[in-house]
């Protein structure tokens, strides 16, 4: 089945080209960022500056986000056929998605509201916010609000929408090398906008503070407590190259 049949250029752009661009930016951006901006790779915690709001806002937001991400994994990455095969009918799935999703939504929106308000209105926190922080926050807020509108508005309070038949297929299709633009092209607008906003977040991710998510230090669980380091002999970089080997001239220094 060719998911690109009968689509116009507009649809090709939004549902195929843009996603691939975003993904490429995501990958290459992370490679660049990890190699060349270790110093900027941090959670940029502001707990020192303000604690009371952070105390609830941050854990609630983060755990809520994990729940939402788990929901996305189940809903988008796991094919509908698998859940059906293990005996979960679509209706049950829909109610689970709506209720668990709503719970996650409440946590996420509650958390992000506290955190965003804190960042906006607490002078000390605002003072240490960079431009790209605002960009990431705004994009995140858009994605979250749209996602909640879907889950609560459509899934819980509305008639429900079986996005697994469309959005999920399209999404998986991108990675299977068989993008199915028609699938998403006929989804409700709110799902389309949510997906597009998500691509924006993905494209911006490697250049923002969001990279701290990859640094969740699970390895701490098995690391010995005290770390020693010794100086090791190293080959010095060629002067003027800042270590970037592609700047090297001629014979190895």
């Amino acid at each position, binding site marked *: 089945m060719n998911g690109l049949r009968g689509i116009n250029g507009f649809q090709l752009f939004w549902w195929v080209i843009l996603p691939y661009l975003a993904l490429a930016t995501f990958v290459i951006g992370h490679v660049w960022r990890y190699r060349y901006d*270790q*110093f900027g*790779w*941090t*959670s*940029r*915690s*502001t*707990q*020192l*500056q*303000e*604690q009371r709001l*952070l*105390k609830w806002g*941050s*854990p609630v*937001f*983060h*755990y809520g986000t994990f729940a939402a991400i788990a929901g996305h994994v189940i809903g988008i990455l796991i094919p509908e056929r698998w859940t059906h095969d293990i005996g979960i009918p679509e209706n049950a799935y829909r109610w689970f998605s709506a209720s668990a999703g709503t719970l996650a939504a409440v946590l996420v929106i509650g958390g992000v509201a506290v955190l965003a308000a804190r960042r906006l209105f607490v*002078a*000390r926190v*605002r*003072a*240490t916010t960079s431009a790209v922080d605002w960009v990431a926050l705004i994009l995140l807020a858009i994605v979250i609000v749209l996602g909640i509108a879907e889950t609560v508005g459509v899934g819980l309070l509305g008639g429900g929408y079986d996005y697994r038949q469309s959005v999920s297929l399209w999404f998986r299709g991108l990675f299977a090398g068989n993008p199915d633009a028609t699938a998403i092209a006929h989804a409700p607008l709110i799902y389309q906008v949510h997906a597009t906003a998500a691509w924006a977040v993905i494209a911006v991710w490697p250049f923002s*503070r969001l990279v*701290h998510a990859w*640094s*969740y*230090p*699970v*390895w*701490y*669980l098995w*690391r*010995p*407590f*005290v*770390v*020693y*380091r*010794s*100086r*090791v*002999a*190293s080959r*010095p*970089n060629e*002067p*003027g*190259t*800042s*270590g970037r080997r592609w700047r090297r001239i001629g014979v190895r220094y």
Partner: protein
Amino acid sequence: MRPMAQVCMVMNLDKCIGCHTCSVTCKQTWTNRPGTEYVYFNNVETKPGLGYPARYEDQERWKGGWTLDRKGRLRLRAGSRLRKLLTIFYNPDLPTIEDFHDPFTYDYARLITAPPGTKSPSVSARSALTGRELNPRWGANWEDDLAGAPQRARSDPNIATMSERVLMDFESVFLFYLPRICEHCLNPSCVASCPSGALYKRSEDGIVLVDQDRCRGWRFCVSGCPYKKVYFNHRTGKAEKCTLCFPRIEAGLPTICSETCVGRLRYLGIVLYDADAVTAAAATPDPRDLYEAQLSVFLDPEDTAVQSAAEQAGIPHDWVVAARRSPVYALIARHKVALPLHPEFRTMPMVWYIPPLSPVADATAAAGYDAADPDAVFATIDALRIPLQYLANLFTAGDVAPVRDALRRLAVVRSVMRATQLGLEHRNDAAEELQMSTADVEDLFRLLAIARYEDRYVIPPAHAEDAGRLLAQHALSGCTLESEGAPGMGGKGPSTGGGPVSGRDLAGRLHLRLVAEPTGRDQ
């Protein structure tokens, strides 16, 4: 036995005048930039007092350092590794910036641009973080010289555990200054608390540092340190701490705080220690035994077995020689006048203190007071103004005996040398009781009173041959310390634009490139 070497410091509190030169010079060198306005790698506290940050010594509240679990094993007071991972979004034990110091500046421009005719303009304090008006309520040195003490100093954790009442009235007033830097502990809880492993202890000299590339801003090191000597840079979002001025130490120079100390009260030297013995010593059940336990971890550099074990372990020969000359080892282990700060935190601190003598509190009532020789305080050590128990709570987990002995040794040196200089008769029984020979008294006198620069700082330069190369390459290779907000490498030196290839700058200083890789040699 696994011998390792560490650069340690001793501070002689008998001589600290609380001038804060050390704080200012350290700040000018390391923390004079946005993000670190509230940070004092070196600070000086007036004791009795709450310190900086407020009440940092109360680990029931702040959960820094280590404690023993029911089975007598060491565990971080703040909780297990899992707890840290679960509370990574909000660290419940983190002090706020107000606990430290809400840094302020002034709107100086208003003074210069005030319209003509303004009667002597004056400006108020503004937050260095937000630019808004700020009414200072606490700071890094709020209690200088006992300001506010009757109100606040009673909450000093060292007083809380004293059975005798500490009087806060004019007749019994006492104070001394406590300058503090990072302890560069043998069993650092900050390193243990860092989930990403960004903090590390250097094998060669024991200096504890934060890898600015690896730090991810989880801020558990800040709460993990019981001395609260790791700070969070609110601009870069990374932790920073006292570096023991490692570029200077590597060149054989003393730290900036030591170099500029007006009172000449700091000592720097090598101590050899047995790395295998550290954990067991830190887990000593009774906190009052921790002082002796830590002493037992130190290795005697005069012992030829230790010397050969050290050299076999890779410690260079000149370092072993320096360990033998070490003023720090002499004060700590030979003369036993220096004591650790809060050993009950179980981190095995490596900046020790000589407790301060003080005048006899009530001469008429003090037992053993000799009005004919008021300098002879040997017999009245227990009646000095600064309560022995207070010093013991600070330095020996409450055990008064070692503090008493240290003070008596200082008193003996004073009375013997005074008598010698004035040509008077003196009795040696006090010295003998403390097992101090004439040579010991003279050595202590020379170290503490004459205190020559070359005697106080015995720092062997680092060895370059096994380390890598030269500052010239290092600086040009895009050192991360140079980027915005970072500590910086200290301006343009001969290394920029192609410096000398020899590895030494024009002042003869040796420059090393620190390329640090985790070795996996952990405890």
